[in-house]
Structures are given as C-alpha cells and as structure tokens.
C-alpha cells in the first residue's frame, strides 16, 4: 500500500476522466436504473481504504487504521473527519484506563456508498469489455 502524503483535499484530482463517462447508459445503477455519479468522497485513496477496512470489521481503532493505512495521525484524522461529516463512518471516543481510545465504525450509509462505488468500478470495466 502506498504511503499517503500530506492531508489535502484532492477529490478533484485524477477523476476527470471518470467524470466524463457519467450519464452513459452502460453505467446505470443496478437498482435505481439511473446512472451512478462517482462518489468523489470515497474515491480518494485513503478514504477508500478507511471505508474498505471498516467494511470487513465491526470497528477499528484509530491506531489500527493508522497502521493499516501506513499514514500519519494528522492525515488519517483529516480524512476520517470528512467521512464522519458525510455520515459514512461513526466515531466513538472512550478511555481505556487512562488512554483515550477512538473507534470507528462503518454506517449503513457508508456501506451503501462503498457498494455503489464497487458497482461503478465494475460497470466501467464491463463497459470497456463490451466495446
């Protein structure tokens, strides 16, 4: 897994190509029948990593996620905050003895967002194969 650099909002970077395919008929949502918009909130690598890791765990602590993502405290907290603000993840703070502990959980909204994102990526691959 690549190391992530400084915390920055690079939602727009590297997705312009993906944006151009919005609205194509073969990128329709599986259930809604409407085209999926690319969820740029989880398109960013670190946020995508956080959501993916939480999707297969009940909950993960801040330090677990930091080790898993091989990132810095500042970087992780900035990106986790963005996901929290979008209600994709829920954060609980507690004390383990005298040590503060921050736990993250994926919300139902976050799980749906990841599923939509997976569908979108699969639709892109399918569309290329069908050409």
């Amino acid at each position, binding site marked *: *897994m690549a190391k992530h650099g400084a915390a920055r909002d690079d939602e727009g970077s590297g997705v312009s190509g993906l944006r151009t395919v919005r609205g194509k008929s073969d990128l329709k949502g599986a259930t809604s029948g409407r085209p999926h918009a690319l969820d740029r909130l989880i398109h960013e690598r670190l946020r*995508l*990593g956080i959501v*993916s*890791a939480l999707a*297969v765990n009940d909950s993960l602590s801040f330090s677990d996620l930091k080790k898993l993502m091989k990132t810095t405290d500042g970087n992780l907290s900035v990106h986790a905050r963005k996901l929290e603000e979008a209600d994709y993840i829920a954060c609980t703070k507690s004390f383990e003895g005298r040590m503060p502990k921050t736990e993250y959980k994926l919300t139902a909204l976050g799980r749906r967002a990841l599923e939509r994102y*997976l569908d979108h*990526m699969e639709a892109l*691959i399918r*569309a290329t194969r069908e050409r």
Partner: protein
Amino acid sequence: MASVTPLHRTPTPEPPALHVRAMDNLAFIRDTMEAAGSFTAVSGWGMVAVGIIAWAAAVLAAVQPTPLQALYVWIAAAVIAPAVSLWATVRKARNAHVPILSGPGRKFLLSFSPPLVVGALLTLVLYRGGLVEMIPGMWLLLYGTGVLAGGAFSVRIVPVMGLCFMLAGTIALFSPPSWNGWIMAAAFGGLHIGFGIPIARRHGG
C-alpha cells in the same frame, strides 16, 4: 543564471485508461480488506447449515444397529456438509466482492485441507484395523487442527472454534465408545451452530 525551458517539451505519457484505473481501485479495495484481516470468507450461515446436517446425522446414526452403519451415516454427512459449506462460502465471498482464493482465503484452504486428507487416510487405516470406535475422536481432533491452523489467517473466533473441536476430540478418544455419538452431535452440530451464528452476525454472513 536563470534556467532555460525548452520550447519542445517531451510528451507526457498518456493517462491510464478508465478501466485500468477501475481495476486498480478494485484491487486496492480487495488488498485493504485482506490486510484488515478481519474478513473471513468462512460463512457463518454455512456453518449453521453444517451444524444442522450434523444433528440430523447424529439422530440417524443413533438408530443404526451397528457402530459401522452409524459411521456410514457420518461419512455421508461428511460429504454433504462440505459441499453446503463451500457453496455458502463462495456466495459470501461474491457478495463481499472478495475473490475466495486470494490472500487469506488461499492460506486458510492450504492450512485447513492437509489435516482433512490425513483424517480420510487414517479413517481407512482404523477401519481396516477394526478400531472404528477411535474414528470419531480422530475426526474431531484433525478437524479441529485444520480449523485452528486455517483460523490463524482468519478472525479470532475461528481458531477458538478449532481449539474447541480439539478438546472434543480429546474427550472422545478417552471416553467410553458409547459417548461418541453424543460428542459428535455436540461438536459437529453444537459448535458449528454456536460459532456460526456470531460469525454470520459480526463478519458479514
């Protein structure tokens, strides 16, 4: 002195195609899920189904006139149950968009299967040696060994289940043969259901 910028820059490489980026993103998600380590392709509901099959086998085996015929019932269950479990596992992995034979899934299979192969061979040996009463204990011990070894690459609850099977196997080996049916029902039925439900609830099905 100021640097000079050439008029004709070398052309920048083409950005990767959309589908390449999409595949890269899917690979990243899969790798992250695997590294997160808590995903278990082992299906909890599949285990519950295996437990129910084991209970049905225990009831059928109990009404058989000889231990050998009871053993045949258990062998039939040992053929049906893995097929059900495999189907549930493949379904779970597909729903989670995780390839079953990558990373932890492959490691689980490689660690889990050798004790089962040994178990099949020892079943033949013990059967030919007339030691049919020893077979249930040996099955439980080796099944537990496989689950424990494979569980090292899975969620914590899986190796704990392996240890419970090994304990049941040890009890079966050192207890009267008449207890074997009860121990098999308690272990293959009870443990699969008892551990299957929390795995299904906490680890994605």
